[in-house]
């Protein structure tokens, strides 16, 4: 797993956004390099929601940001409606910015505390002088109304709103400039479950109302499954598995996908947490990622081949692709406990008999 490849991409003409072999690296101390994203390819059809899932440090946020060229990738191609974004001049790219918006994880810190809600939502429109002042005001009122914030309260500042309401305001700000694509970077991770449900439903409504295309980044597979039409599971800058949510959930092919699924706490006391299925250890450093398959250090199925040869995405089902030399058979059970902990933390399988 944790490989590259383009087998999962659809026809050139079909996709609105097509990302190929995206590489993002950052310089680190001592001449080392952070390999944040190493060869991600994905495509999104108009009106679709693409879910990017993985642990912290898997490069999902970096991928989202590289799509909107913040910062531009080291190499690879990002084509939006046929336009190659990586090749654009700064000014041309700037003109495209209203079409590409982002929503961030922390709703409170992503809003300027010293400005009023109306100014925050209207900023993009003001910069681009969309219509006249009255029509801009009408647009702000409309989007605020759409996200469930009373425009009468638009004179207030962010601290007067709750976290869930601030996230609504962030959504209103993103929608105001009539974007084609919104990158949602963990938009519900900081919220209570009850508010999380409201925001997920709201995003769905906004999608229907404004015909949006979304990239939805999250670490919770249950949330991603709910919102997405297609899911990319990422690990340490590489792709593990790509497919539609139903297939990936029904039959995870990648051992890492299975681990992510097993980690979700189900609200059902009859399903006692099974520590044998818990993925041990931590994601390795992106300064020196493992050779071959990057997941091999935590994978119970790893063989010598995994250290030598990087797996490439291949089709396992009509709508499911996996980058693994030894994908899971249906109903195959994995025991993570020993491998993960033994291999990466240096304890030899002791203390793992939690039941």
């Amino acid at each position, binding site marked *: 797993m944790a490989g590259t490849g383009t087998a999962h991409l659809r026809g050139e003409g079909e996709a609105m956004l097509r990302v190929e072999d995206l590489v993002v690296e950052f310089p680190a101390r001592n001449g080392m390099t952070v390999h944040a994203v190493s060869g991600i390819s994905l495509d999104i059809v108009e009106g679709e929601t693409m879910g990017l899932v993985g*642990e*912290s440090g898997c490069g999902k946020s970096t991928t989202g940001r590289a799509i909107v060229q913040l910062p531009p990738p080291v190499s690879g191609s990002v084509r939006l409606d046929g336009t190659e974004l990586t090749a654009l001049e700064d000014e041309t790219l700037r003109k495209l910015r209203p079409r590409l918006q982002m929503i961030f994880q922390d709703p409170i810190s992503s809003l300027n505390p010293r400005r009023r809600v109306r100014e925050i939502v209207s900023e993009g429109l003001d910069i681009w002088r969309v219509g006249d002042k009255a029509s801009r005001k009408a647009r702000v009122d409309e989007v605020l109304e759409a996200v*469930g*914030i*009373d425009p009468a309260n638009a004179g207030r500042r962010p601290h007067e709103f*709750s*976290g*869930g309401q601030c996230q609504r305001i962030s959504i209103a700000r993103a929608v105001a400039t009539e974007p084609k694509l919104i990158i949602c970077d963990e938009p519900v991770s900081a919220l*209570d*479950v*009850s*508010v*999380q*449900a*409201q925001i*997920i*439903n709201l995003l*769905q409504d906004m999608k229907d109302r404004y015909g949006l295309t979304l990239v939805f980044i999250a*670490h*919770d*597979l*249950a*949330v991603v*499954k*709910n*919102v*997405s*039409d297609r899911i990319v599971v990422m690990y340490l800058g590489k792709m593990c598995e790509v497919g539609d*949510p*139903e297939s990936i*959930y029904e039959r995870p092919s990648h051992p890492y996908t299975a*681990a*992510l*699924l*097993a*980690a*979700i*706490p*189900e*609200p*059902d*006391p*009859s*399903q*006692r*947490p099974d*520590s044998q299925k*818990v*993925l*041990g250890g*931590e994601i390795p450093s992106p300064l020196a990622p493992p050779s071959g398959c990057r997941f091999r250090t935590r994978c119970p199925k790893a063989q010598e081949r995994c250290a030598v040869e990087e797996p490439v995405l291949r089709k396992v089902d009509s709508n499911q692709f996996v980058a693994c030399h030894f994908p899971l058979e249906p109903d195959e059970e994995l025991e993570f406990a020993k491998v993960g*902990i033994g291999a*990466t*933390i*240096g*304890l030899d399988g002791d*203390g793992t008999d*939690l039941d």
Partner: protein
Amino acid sequence: MSTTGLGGATSNGRLLEVTDVKTYFETDRGVVKSVDGVTFTLDRGKTLGIVGESGCGKTVLSRSIMGLLPKRGLVREGAIQFEGTDLIGLSDKDMREYWGAQMSMIFQDPMTSLNPVMKIGKQITESIRQHLDVTKEFAQELAESLLASVRIPEPQVRLKEYPHQLSGGMRQRVCIAVALACGPKLLFADEPTTALDVTVQAQVLDLMAQQQRERFMAMVLITHDLGVVAGRADEIAVMYAGRIVEKAKTSELFSDMKMPYTEALLSSIPKLADHSHTRLATIPGRPPDLVNPPLGCKFAPRCAYVQDRCREEEPPLQLASPGHEYRCWFPVGTPEGKDAFERNRRAGDVVATAALAQAETV
């Protein structure tokens, strides 16, 4: 019911008895009734899950029990018996004997709850040296074995590092090591995994469960996610607006919940088994203002079962079965509840939908 662990001799004794605890804050806006009459007990080695939304008082309750609240404008009433001693009257100086040694706490954000300019080792040995009469060298050794027991690789190296050199999951393990250093009998874990990834969350929760069993320690696990406590708590208390609105053994709470709020919390969690794009059930609106809470049932303005009686008269705690308490006039799963829900739906969703839409825009 596990009898493994160190405290076998005193197993199943009552450890904590909280009776009608109130915690109010006097502010410029008026008195904020953060915790308003909470009663529960906790036996040695057991886990109580406290569940509720932000602002329901779950954090204030745990800090009130530990005596960790700012004193200014604080009103604290009721009785908190810890092994027979009432903690409410104790001064900070007396409480110091309890903090760390008898009861300790793990917080949500592992970065801000560790001292950023103190080495990991010092943060662990600090309380060991305070409470246990041991040499510096012994404390060091103890700290190293604690780090190993929370599965931190290369503990002797980590002891000399600062918190920023560790990942979030590792930092939370250090917090657990600090909390366990003096062998407390009671551990409060306040949203211990909310800031962590799902995979790391599972690791940390497993680790806490293992340590709890080995030490025969009681735990209060505070979270907004019913999924987190479902497989891990012996008993669950659901809090709303400063009160316990339902409390039962975990299996009974899930199989036979009575309180519409519990039902609503549960149904708002996205389930893996649902198809994608399944519309999630939400709880409209927000929890009430604790300065001026609604007159009757505090949940009435957001409740799908609400009737006139709910708005006028607050339901008392009632017993569904031994150990299962709830606060509702029209409980889930009863004929009255069913009628109330149906009446609301028929009555035209005019009221119900309006209430919904209105609440959403608040």
